[in-house]
């Protein structure tokens, strides 16, 4: 749920990057953190294991500056993707205004993508929100990997609700901002 503080003239929105382990959620945030101008971003906070796998979440506050007199902030989070951390994902999703589902385009990851997307639907529904109406943007990441599944195949299994979807290679930044723009606008349209 977005928070609008009329006294401080601030609007806050929470966007969560969801998806299976190693699909590139943290890479998305790292790229955004590197590219956004200094005055518009806070520190990228990562709670990770020693091997740099996300343990709890990554957090990146973005400050869009004043829009019509309102200081507007987007808070970006990632969830830990590994199956083990299901309950942690529920915790991070709490109060999200929109979700980017980062799918891994590699052939052998298809089943994990499907399972993770199903879990997302269950978790959103548990928050008493209708999944069909919830703002979601789909990102097919790792398009640069040889033998990546055709987008038509990914659409067939993952995009049954007809979300906006973007192809991406988060490590070099391709498609990262297209995805962020799409989810930001979608969240704003639902405020």
């Amino acid at each position, binding site marked *: *749920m*977005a*928070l*609008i*503080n*009329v*006294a*401080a003239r601030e*609007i*806050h929105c*929470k966007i969560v990057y969801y998806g299976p382990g190693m699909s590139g959620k943290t890479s998305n945030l790292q790229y*955004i953190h590197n*590219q*956004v*101008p200094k005055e*518009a971003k*806070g*520190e990228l*906070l990562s709670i990770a294991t020693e091997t740099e796998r996300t343990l*709890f*979440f990554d*957090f990146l*506050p*973005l400050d*869009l*500056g004043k*829009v*019509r007199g*309102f200081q*507007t*902030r987007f*808070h970006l*989070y990632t969830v830990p993707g590994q199956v083990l951390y299901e*309950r*942690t994902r*529920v*915790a*991070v999703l*709490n*109060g*999200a*205004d929109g979700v980017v589902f980062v799918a891994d385009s590699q052939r052998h990851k298809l089943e994990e993508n499907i399972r993770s997307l199903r879990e997302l639907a269950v978790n959103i529904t548990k*928050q*008493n*929100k*209708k999944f069909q*109406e*919830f*703002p979601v943007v789909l990102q097919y990441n790792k398009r640069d990997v040889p033998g990546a599944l055709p987008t038509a195949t990914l659409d067939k299994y993952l995009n049954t609700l007809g979300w906006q979807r973007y192809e991406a290679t988060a490590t070099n*930044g391709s498609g990262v*901002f297209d995805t*962020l*723009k799409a989810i*930001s*606008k979608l969240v*704003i*349209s*639902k*405020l």
Partner: protein
Amino acid sequence: MDPQLTSQIVPIEEVKVIEECLVRLAEDTGGNYVLLLDKSGQVITAQGDAARQDITALGALIAGTFASSREVAKLLREKDFRQLFTQGVRENIFIALIEDQWILCIIFNKGTHIGLVKVLTKKATDDLSVVLERVREQQKARDDVLGSSFRTSMEDTIDLLFRD
């Protein structure tokens, strides 16, 4: 519009009431810092040491801790943990849930007794529950804030800022 996706708008007069409540809690307990957060981790308002620069990250982490404790509660077949206490060498943190929506957090040092913090925080959460109820009921301010011109300006800003 889906009511579940409705934004929460905290009007000016309610922010004033909240601030008074937080100031009172800080003064009466001798606490260093008091924060009111939404459960999504966003800071509604904060009182105390003005030099603190890290409240955005603090808000995200505290809300994360609370959300995580809620999942632990479920595993233990508890409804939820309404209060959390974290003890440090110099500073302690006491966190209390307000209904299921807001989180009140007080940071205090060794000079303050935890018992006093618990009692006064309970009183503050009762007062803030009433404010939360009023905030939930009020709807009218949204159109004043979020007209179509706001959304258009917002989209322009997004295009300008989010690019390679």
